[in-house]
């Protein structure tokens, strides 16, 4: 995967991407959107994969759950990997189901030794089943567990060390969680081992008021915030240039808007390339 900017490919843009083949280094899709047995949707992505490196980004494997791994879901992911041969495969440091019921959202883990061992074993098992490394993404948080004995950055680095996974560092998620839960995002970045970082994510968030106080929500429905661009520059300074995704999932704007955000990321990546050269 080139250390350049890519965009999240959403259904509203598929035809335009096929027709115009815009200048963007790579594309990322949600894995679960391509689990179907067949159809136009699948054929279109197969064609797109001829022109762009792909990243498959999963949201439904529920890696941190204490339920057994969903082997059917895993098999569908394995099938998608065979079909599209993506350059990167990623999932989240989260859980979304227990007792067979799914929230279909990315829920937080307590940062305990028990959870660290559990999720690391699960990630290792998935990597073994897929025969390749996963990049694991930090999620946005709105609450944390009082039983946590580790900070999120220590937990994430520990999971990478124990499971051998790569890391997908979502800069916006760090910013959102830092503002919500009151930690220093610079400390977070400083704790992440650069060699493990495979990809970076950038997205927009929304500010709301709850209980009379500000709460940031990771909506993926707005331009990347100025403060997040600033944190991204500092992430590049620490990790070096890395494949960087512009994610936009709700109120999806015209393709040109995503490409402009990607161009801005590319400009910052260019500066990082120069610095590290």
């Amino acid at each position, binding site marked *: 995967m080139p250390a350049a900017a890519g965009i999240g490919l959403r259904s509203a843009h598929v035809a335009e991407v096929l027709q115009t083949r815009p200048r963007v280094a790579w594309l990322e899709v949600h894995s*679960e*959107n391509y*689990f*179907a*047995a*067949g*159809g*136009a*949707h*699948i*054929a279109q992505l197969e064609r797109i994969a001829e022109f762009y490196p792909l990243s498959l980004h999963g*949201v*439904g*494997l*529920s890696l941190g*759950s*204490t339920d057994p791994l*969903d082997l059917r*879901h895993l098999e*569908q992911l394995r099938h998608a990997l065979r079909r599209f041969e993506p350059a990167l495969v990623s999932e989240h440091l989260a*859980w*979304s*189901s*227990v*007792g*067979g*019921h*799914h*929230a*279909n*959202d990315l*829920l937080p*883990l*307590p940062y*305990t030794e*028990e*959870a660290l061992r*559990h999720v690391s074993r699960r990630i290792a098992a998935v990597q073994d089943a897929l025969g390749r490394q996963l990049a694991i993404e930090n999620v946005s948080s*709105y*609450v*944390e*567990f*009082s*039983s946590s004995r580790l900070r999120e950055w220590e937990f994430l680095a520990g999971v990478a060390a124990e499971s051998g996974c790569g890391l997908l560092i979502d800069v916006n998620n760090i910013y959102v969680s830092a*503002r*919500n*839960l*009151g930690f220093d995002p610079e400390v977070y970045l400083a704790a992440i081992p650069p060699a493990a970082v495979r990809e970076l994510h950038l997205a927009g968030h929304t500010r709301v*008021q*709850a*209980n*009379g*106080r*500000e*709460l940031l*929500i990771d909506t993926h429905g707005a331009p990347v915030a100025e403060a997040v661009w600033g944190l991204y520059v500092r992430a590049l300074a620490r990790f070096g240039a890395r494949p960087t995704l512009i994610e936009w999932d709700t109120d999806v704007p015209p393709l040109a808007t995503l490409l402009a955000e990607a161009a801005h990321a590319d400009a910052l990546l260019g500066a990082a390339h120069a610095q590290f050269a």
Partner: protein
Amino acid sequence: MPSLRELQSDFLAAILGGDAAGPAGARLECELVAGGYGIAGGLAVYANNAEHHFIDSLRKSFPVVHRLVGEAYFARCAREFRRDQPSRSGDLHHLGAGFPAYWQRRHGDDHYRYLAAVARLEWLHEEALTAADHPAFDLAKLARVPPTAYDTLRFRLHPSLRLFESEFPTLAIWEANRRTEQEPEFIDLSAGGERVLLVRTTNGIAMHRLAVGEFAFLQQIEQARGFTDSIAAAEQADVEFDATVALEKFVREQVIVDLWEHP
């Protein structure tokens, strides 16, 4: 200290049950910390996300039902359906399988019972969109079959083929409400039922009304009945059924995509 599983069970109960004030929520109060917006404010984000993803997935799969009943009633029914049948998969695309039956339970005995038929048609449309592909029929294979083999001959339908039957003019309702840029035309619910074939083509999902005999013929083939028996059933259902015309039509339209001989 509660185990990871206990924490997860309480967390999910609090956000899916919509009852952060219930017993699970009370236990979580001792286990969570949040910013100034409070634990309830933080949990509400997860609860809203989970509900939004569920309802939005149904909205995308059932656009015509959504248009017919309006956003407010659709969301209310989707919430009720979710309480009854919460998501059991990390892949949201399966959620709608039970939604037609929900409408049947909710409105099966009243004036709005056509909603269940529309929901059923929309779900078949979803299934057809994502079914497996199949290469085009090798017509030379058909030409090689001797008439003596007709009794053991079986046809294979395209994997996306779905058959739909309803007492209402459901396809007419669907067609009128898919064009969202204009007001839907008036549909007379007593205009009579429809038999519909759905199949994926290079241009999307084709939906054709079928005559009684054609429908019976495809139903027989779908159940892996022999060619001769399928024709007999179709002729019994509809005296005007013409097997040659039907076979030519369904092969041309890539509804029938292969054949095999039952040993």
